[in-house]
């Protein structure tokens, strides 16, 4: 089966990464910042698989293995991050990161 070209995959994942970055920089809600981080992680995973797919060696599985590890770690990080967000909400009663800024300077 013919797959999309390497350039197309890399550009696609670059766009996803920048979308995630824009979300992290611009949104004022902790959960959406975490969502942006998940998008960036996924974009990097697509890069791994794209490079693996277009590499001529025939019996290595390093690409999918790396992606599986990254998937699991991203899920664990999302879980811990969201638990932290819930704990922060309990304390500050808000999920706006600007409330937690240090306003003394």
């Amino acid at each position, binding site marked *: 089966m013919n797959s999309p070209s390497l350039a197309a995959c890399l550009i696609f994942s670059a766009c996803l990464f*920048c979308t995630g970055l824009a979300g992290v920089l611009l949104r004022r809600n902790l959960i959406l910042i975490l969502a942006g981080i998940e998008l960036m992680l996924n974009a990097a995973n697509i890069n791994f698989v794209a490079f693996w797919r277009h590499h001529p060696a025939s019996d290595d599985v390093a690409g999918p293995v790396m992606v599986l590890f990254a*998937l699991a770690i991203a899920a664990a990080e999302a879980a811990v991050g969201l638990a932290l967000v819930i704990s922060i909400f309990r304390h500050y009663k808000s999920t706006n990161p600007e409330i937690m800024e240090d306003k003394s300077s």
Partner: protein
Amino acid sequence: MTTVFCITALTTLASAVAAMSLRNLVHCVLCLTVSFIGMAMVYLQLSSQFVGFAQVMVYVGAVAILMIFALLMTRGGQELFMREWRPMHWLVGGLVSLALLAVLVGSILQSPVIQNTGPVDKVERVKDLGQSLVYEYLLPLEALALLLTVALIGAALIALPPKQHPIKPQPREDS
């Protein structure tokens, strides 16, 4: 560039942009889920089926549900639109992202990797994946298991509500 990849990539990008820009937070998470599914389809087109299915299972089946629960527990499900329109922020943030996108796309198009690789036929065998996980990558696998256990216990501990001490009933005064 095949048609199917074009459609999938455009759908994924559109829903990712929507996820980062909608005002209703639950809609954002649902659009993010659509982009996760789109990415799983891209994995399938890159002939790594196991990774695609694992992506759906982990992200759509677990991480999206986690985000929704966290959203509901932090009152995000209500229509509390906070004032987010700050032109300077959006301008600077948008410019940074676009600049990074330009740098990345430029370096991709000029790199020798793109010019030198031709069509390659590659197949992912689940048996090879399983064997390499247990033989070559055993140490990272065990470390990952440890990390997942720690994350599970830690997340549960962090998210537990603080313990409330019950009050004992006072003895009644009448005799």
